[in-house]
């Protein structure tokens, strides 16, 4: 029973991280329907920027966090402006391959500057955040990331619901042409959504870095694990991303605990194929699949 609960907590916290990582991905898809294969590298960019600021430049943690978010915001903006904007209206394969190319470029850059070794942040989270329930303990990192995840989710919920930019973004996601004809500046919306998504990715990257340490290969493979998560949750549902993340995290934890640890990494993809065959729009996605 104790083993079960430990697995449950592990799964929940890893799943929450998957969910957080998927948030930015869903935002990009929602507004510009770009399938971003470079998402893992965006996560890594945030993680490494924070690393540089905290461990090398010795900036106080809070300021470093703010600077990282601002830097990622700018990065997302620049990426959209230079690489994605010329491809508006191009066919799917070019957009997908462009993000694949970007992923490989970013990965190369990060490997060049930081190498493929595991790096860690100095320990800065207060130990008081840890929760102990009898013999089961939740480390402070997980508590902090759950809190952050919760806060961001609420903020985004409010942003999409009430702010004018959030409403523009939803309108573009719903129907680009209609939004354009009603005077929404679609290009601005794309740029903004990439910027915000990169910012969220940066934040998730920092969380990942605190928990697992920072390693380019590892973080970029988490970027690929975003796919089962978002397909399960529904490609355009932000709440679905979190729930999908948690389900995938739990599945991974239980398969590695009860069946075989080596199966852990492939189980999300097996699930992914089945979801695609049975319910391709996911748990909370919009039904827009056409069958020909």
């Amino acid at each position: 029973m104790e083993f079960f609960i430990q697995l449950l907590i592990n799964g929940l916290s890893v799943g929450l991280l998957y969910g957080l990582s998927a948030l930015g991905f869903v935002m990009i898809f929602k507004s510009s329907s770009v399938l971003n294969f470079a998402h893992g590298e965006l996560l890594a960019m945030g993680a490494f920027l924070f690393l540089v600021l905290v461990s090398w430049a010795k900036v106080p943690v809070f300021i470093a966090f703010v600077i990282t978010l601002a830097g990622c915001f700018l990065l997302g903006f620049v990426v959209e402006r230079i690489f994605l904007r010329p491809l508006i209206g191009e066919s799917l394969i070019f957009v997908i391959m462009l993000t694949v190319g970007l992923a490989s470029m970013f990965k190369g850059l990060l490997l060049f500057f930081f190498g493929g070794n595991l790096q860690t942040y100095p320990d800065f989270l207060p130990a008081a955040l840890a929760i102990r329930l009898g013999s089961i303990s939740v480390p402070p990192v997980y508590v902090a990331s759950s809190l952050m995840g919760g806060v961001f989710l609420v903020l985004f919920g409010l942003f999409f619901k009430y702010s004018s930019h959030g409403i523009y973004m939803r309108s573009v996601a719903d129907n680009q042409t209609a939004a354009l004809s009603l005077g929404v500046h679609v290009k601005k919306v794309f740029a903004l959504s990439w910027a915000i998504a990169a910012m969220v990715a940066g934040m998730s990257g920092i969380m990942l870095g605190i928990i697992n340490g920072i390693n380019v290969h590892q973080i970029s493979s988490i970027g690929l694990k975003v796919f089962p998560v978002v397909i399960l949750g529904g490609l355009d549902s932000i709440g679905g991303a979190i729930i999908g993340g948690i389900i995938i995290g739990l599945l991974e934890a239980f398969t590695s605990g009860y069946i075989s640890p080596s199966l852990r990494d492939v189980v999300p993809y097996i699930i992914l194929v089945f979801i695609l065959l049975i319910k391709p729009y996911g748990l909370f996605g919009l039904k827009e699949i056409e069958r020909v």
Partner: protein
Amino acid sequence: MRRMHVHPCGNFKENYAQELTVFETDFGRIAVFLGLIVLFGIVPFVSSPYLLYVMNTTGIAAIAALGLNILVGFTGQISLGHGAFFGVGAYAGAILATAAGLPFWVAVPAAGFITAFVGMIFGIPSGRLKGLYLTIATLAGQFIIEYILVHWESLTKGTMGITLPTATIFGVALDNDRRFFFVIFLCLAAITLVTSNLMRTRYGRAFIAIRDNDRAAEGMGIPIFPYKLLSFAISSFYAGFAGALWAYYMVSISSEPFTLGLSVEYIAMVIIGGLGSIPGSIFGAVFITGLNEMLRFATDALMNLGALAGFGLNSASLREFAFGLAIVLFILFEPKGLAELWRIVRSSFRLWPFSY
């Protein structure tokens, strides 16, 4: 004898036979024959072993890239699992050669058929999915196949890998690069010919119709799903064939190379070469393999510079970056790829001096 004719300055085709012809002019036919004579008569005898090795890997990559181009460029189904299919072919070839003891010339096509079968299984989602959903499904296929290759140890020997016997064909042992060169490039030439003819049959035209507009294709009476499966099967057959050749050429294989990175490399070949273009696939294979080799030289040279050695410069990072940059630049500036550049160069010669 027929009169030699050159390319007209416009589209003056009068019947379907002219539209379907493989060589548009007799000069094209002669150029191809001359090219083949140079390729088989001169190139293997003047090249160094290293150059032969590079050309052989290029030839194998070109076969696989042709297969992917049928699926992506002609049928419009984006697959991120081609590297895994290549791996399936390599393992199928290796297992048939060692456990079943089949000779080279049986094992390689048989590996192709096995891979075609596997490809059809992973093509089944295409019955319900299209566009990015299908892409994600093939991504999942890549990871699942990779996992099976590593963990089905009774069959694939896991991380230990399999060592193959020397290939023999008609009693000749293919034990050096030059002999392999002939086998690989004969296969490539035959496959290129088959592919360019295949794209002119009802199957090829059905593929193109599905790519251009699947609803319209269905309306015209093309059964979409069987044709998509067929496209997956043909494309995987090529991948498997190339994979088995590769396994024989490399002598021993392990599950390491068949990652998502390899799949991306094949897609990059197809895009950089030119989607939906048969010479394009070969251009792409040449470009990517050449780029890899050049980057290897460049990093070796930089590492020996001493001043940079302490900087932690490793070949992996430069390779990744340059590879990504090549993809991005081609997509942004020449999305139709090298085949289009080649066409522009040719037509500017043809139309000179009135090139408009």
